[in-house]
């Protein structure tokens, strides 16, 4: 993979090049946290941030969207949105790895149209980050993005070393001729030092080897209930999770009773209807069942990428109103602490 160097004082030129490719969306501070929003100028966003509440998945599987028009006599037709190019600027490695997992699900042998077309119209620009007290991406091998981006910016102090991930990234770099430079061996030393420093900053860890087997085998542990009693079943952990991807589908007619829409909405496995079938049988009737289901799902391996379904972003812990700590649950089930 090609690496180029961009002096930070010339970052605005990269920003302009990205803007000329498409709408740039970057982390903007909202409340105590951040949100990917459309930005027009450098002052509106930051590349040095902890985490957004809602991960980048929102650009590809929309939180709520109408997917089909329905007519009571004629049936369905797709709702085609105007395609527009979007640059996600400042995506962390964990979120890039999560998108790789989602890509595998949504663009498999039967690709989802809505997802696939948005994904092909997007550019992912990653940025290196420093862990806070909730991050454990390193434990699950998601702290580094080998692939899944178009450009990846590594902060080495006065410059960024930029890994160029593909043709879209190349096209941007091509526009920056004379702005980007060839990195020197000293730059690589800086990069290594940065990575070593970052690596030592992780304060939390999860023993990811054996995790699927352990979580599955200890399904009967009484400790689950200690946490599921506390759990409010609100689904926040699912919606903020960068790999949670369940959606519900509903259909309704307008007041004219002739036309309507079929829509889909982010769903949560904590909701009653998630495993409920017509006739009233619920395959996961209790909050305990659903709690264990979520932890099993997150502790399983994605066969396509070989990665754990949890990328260690820490969102589910940070945004759980009941204060349930994902790592504490897993560690305690495992008999640690």
């Amino acid at each position, binding site marked *: 993979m090609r690496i180029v160097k961009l002096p930070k004082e010339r970052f605005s030129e990269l920003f302009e090049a990205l803007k000329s490719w498409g709408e740039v969306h970057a982390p903007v501070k909202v409340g105590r946290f951040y949100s990917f929003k459309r930005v027009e100028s450098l002052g509106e966003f930051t590349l040095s941030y902890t985490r957004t509440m809602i991960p980048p998945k929102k650009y590809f599987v929309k939180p709520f969207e109408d997917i089909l028009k329905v007519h009571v006599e004629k049936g369905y037709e797709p709702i085609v949105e105007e395609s527009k190019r979007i640059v996600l600027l400042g995506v962390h490695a964990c979120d890039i790895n999560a998108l790789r997992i989602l890509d595998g699900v949504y663009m498999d042998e039967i690709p989802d149209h809505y997802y696939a077309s948005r994904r092909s119209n997007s550019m992912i620009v990653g940025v290196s980050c420093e862990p806070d007290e909730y991050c454990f991406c390193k434990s699950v091998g998601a702290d580094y993005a080998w692939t899944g981006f178009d450009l990846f910016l590594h902060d080495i102090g006065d410059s960024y070393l930029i890994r160029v991930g593909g043709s879209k990234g190349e096209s941007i770099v091509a526009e920056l001729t004379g702005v980007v430079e060839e990195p020197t061996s000293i730059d690589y030393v800086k990069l290594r030092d940065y990575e070593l420093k970052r690596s030592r900053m992780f304060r939390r860890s999860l023993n990811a080897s054996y995790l699927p087997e352990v979580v599955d085998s200890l399904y009967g542990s009484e400790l689950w209930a200690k946490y599921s009693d*506390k759990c*409010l*079943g609100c*689904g926040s952990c699912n*919606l903020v999770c960068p790999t949670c991807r369940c959606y519900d589908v509903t259909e309704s007619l307008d*007041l004219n*009773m002739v036309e309507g829409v079929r829509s889909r909405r*982010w769903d949560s496995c904590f*909701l009653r209807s998630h495993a409920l079938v017509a006739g009233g049988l619920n395959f996961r009737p209790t909050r305990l069942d659903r709690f264990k289901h979520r932890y099993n799902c997150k502790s399983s391996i994605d066969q396509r990428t070989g990665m754990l379904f949890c990328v260690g972003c820490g969102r589910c812990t940070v945004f759980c109103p*009941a204060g349930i700590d994902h790592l504490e649950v897993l560690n305690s089930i495992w008999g640690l602490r």
Partner: protein
Amino acid sequence: MAGKVRVGFYSLTGCAGDLLSILNIEDRLLEIFEKVELVEFVMASSNVKPGGVDIAFVEGSVTTEKDLKALKEIRAKCDRLVALGDCAVWGGVQASLTGLDPRELMKSVYGTEQNLYGFLGEHKPLSEVVKVDLELPGCPIEQEEFIKAFVSLLRGDLPEVKDYPVCIECKIREVPCLVVEKGEACLGPITVGGCKARCPYHGVPCIGCRGPIKDEANVAGELLMLMEKGWKPLDAINRMKLFAARYKDLAKLVGRG
């Protein structure tokens, strides 16, 4: 179709805000009512027709003997009965008085222990008295939810029942979490969504006006959460009682003191 669907709107004890909400859908009101034969809607028209109805929309709690009689009559003459609003679904704010001595209540308001208006002693939701086919929660109801349900009912269907809390809608709208960020006493996690998280969106914690998620809301967990954020148990319980006093798990919590 043989004739239009016959529809009636009825009021028991409450502020009449749910029926008012329907009348407030001004721009689409004619479109709504041209589809049906309106048998009774006293707030809108003094013209009350005799006979049964296909769909009865009932707001208000069952508070008085008069309510009880009226509700049973409505049930007997309708095919589908829809409870409109928190009073009809959960007994309303008045139901937060559940457990208090009715004579004391009478005395504190009217200065006499005499039962002046056939008070039943408590404020019940419709489902504690008769079979209810559909419940549309809210204080008041959501107009959009009413229209969708109305269309669905006219076609002979029932709309899907919402099983998700306000938190889901906060996340969908990317509203910063008032519990996580500010430690506010937000009832979003136990309250059924459908309001598009209107209050949290404006920075106001949810007070639970759409009622708890039936059979699901973890009120003990909510209490624990609020206590961990520094709220006094009594304050937290009172907050939940405002709209959820007749939710069985909350009643249990209150019973335990």
